[in-house]
């Protein structure tokens, strides 16, 4: 294994060695959401006909975990190695900015999907969703994790301290995932907030992902795919540019 594949391997090994923290913990968090929201809202909320609230909740929780963990992976790896100084071992290598991009985003996708499978395996026990169109599930999971892994690269390059990183996570990533329709269908919102939700790219990731399970969604999965694909290209272009100029990592 050589070149960017080594960096990808190292980044996967990095989270795998602490998988109790990086995989098991987020699965537990999702289970807690499932237990509490599922229990409280089961008999009160009806999102789509024929689909129980707990079943509706499963894909949302899975996708939320995929997204948050994909972001956390590249972001925390970069910030940590910047602060510890061990990023120098990668900075001294001949690896190109594309190698960095594929390795950091690739490992983030790997962690996102791994956590997603874990969350699904546990939460599906509460309310079994169907697999209406599995290919959509895979496409949206990979693209969503890719976008968040890329955002993690951008945030990881930008942040100089752990608290800046935490601010990005708490004030940008968390609100956008929570307000994307994980716990509800945006059709249940007043018209104004429906409009706002349509501006949130995270909404399309979750809506398209959920379509793969139920075959119903708030907007067409093709529209979601178009928007999610476009966002991925945009954030990737920015991340690759920052890596190429060595933004905040080469003086």
């Amino acid at each position, binding site marked *: 294994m050589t070149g960017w594949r080594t960096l990808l*391997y190292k980044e996967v090994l990095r989270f795998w060695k602490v998988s109790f923290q990086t995989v098991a913990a987020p699965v537990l968090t999702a289970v807690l959401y499932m237990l509490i929201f599922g229990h409280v809202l089961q008999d009160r909320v009806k999102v789509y006909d024929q689909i129980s609230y707990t079943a509706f909740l499963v894909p949302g929780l899975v996708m939320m975990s995929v997204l948050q963990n994909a972001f956390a992976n590249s972001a925390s790896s970069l910030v940590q190695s910047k602060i510890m100084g*061990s990023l120098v071992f990668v900075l*001294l290598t001949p690896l190109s900015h594309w190698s960095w991009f594929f390795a950091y985003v690739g490992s983030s996708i790997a962690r996102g999907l791994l956590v997603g499978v874990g969350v699904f395996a546990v939460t599906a026990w509460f309310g079994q969703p169907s697999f209406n169109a599995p290919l959509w599930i895979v496409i949206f999971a990979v693209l969503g994790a890719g976008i968040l892994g890329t955002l993690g690269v951008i945030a990881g390059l930008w942040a100089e301290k752990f608290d800046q990183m935490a601010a990005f996570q708490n004030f940008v990533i968390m609100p956008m995932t929570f307000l994307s329709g994980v716990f509800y269908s945006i059709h249940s919102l007043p018209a104004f907030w429906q409009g706002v939700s349509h501006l949130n790219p995270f909404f399309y990731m979750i809506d398209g992902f959920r379509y793969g399970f139920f075959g119903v969604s708030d907007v067409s999965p093709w529209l979601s795919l178009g928007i999610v694909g476009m966002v991925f290209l945009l954030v990737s272009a920015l991340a690759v540019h920052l890596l190429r100029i060595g933004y905040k990592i080469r003086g």
Partner: protein
Amino acid sequence: MPAISFQSVSKIYPSGRNGPLKALDGVSFDIREGEFFGLLGPNGAGKTTLISILAGLARPTSGRVTVRGHDVQADYAQARRQLGVVPQELVFDPFFNVREALRIQSGYFGVKNNEAWIDELLHSLGLADKADANMRQLSGGMKRRMLVAQALVHKPPVIVLDEPTAGVDVELRQTLWQFVARLNKEGSTVLLTTHYLEEAEALCGRIAMLKSGRVVALERTSELLKAASSNVLRFKMDSALPVEFEDKARVTGRIVQLPAHDAHEIERYLAIIRKAGLRVEDVEVRKADLEDVFLDVMAKHGEQVAV
């Protein structure tokens, strides 16, 4: 083709404490293949900035650096393949053990099946019994050796050591210098920055001295030593320094050292001591060393520096 070529390298940091800071100011010199080259200078002279630009960790504001003909910016991948850099800071990746870290580092450089060389590195640097230890468990000295091993894992023809012996015990310094001297003998070019002037004197064939971002001396080590006053009169004394010595003497606690070109000058110093009726002990005359040269050169280019 030189192993390393610095061509009018300048670096200005836009936000220094007192406005823009000129860390390097038109630095130019070449290091030939196979040389053991020393880069000396007081703290803040620009040594680490120069090495960072060479290694691609920083970019020059103007000027150009090549490694065996490869521009460190335009052709960075080839340039970095030629370089093995031992960073000054004691850094490590806490997720891996010694052997894993070396395998990963090999992979970054595209080196496959590197086990034989990894074993040799571990053996030569006294890390063989730590191969399976996590990086966190290593002592400071062990981590320092590991930095050397990581820098050499892809068998670079040009080795850069940025103050590798700062805060390192005598035994490790010996191991390290034996190993680096062997690699140099086998053809590797070595660029060393150090605070230990006796190390530079013993190891380096040629030396550049930096001061405030400029090259103030660039000479064969033997020439540098020849150019300095050949002898030093050294003695211990409790009383105040006579005024005649004030601008010449180097004082460290009770120890006074005076550079002298010939026997007459020594006699003159002794006469001054006698006339002032000073009590001195442990009087000796020794040959000037690189430290004397260093202080001499630095003094000629501005204020006194601490060593």
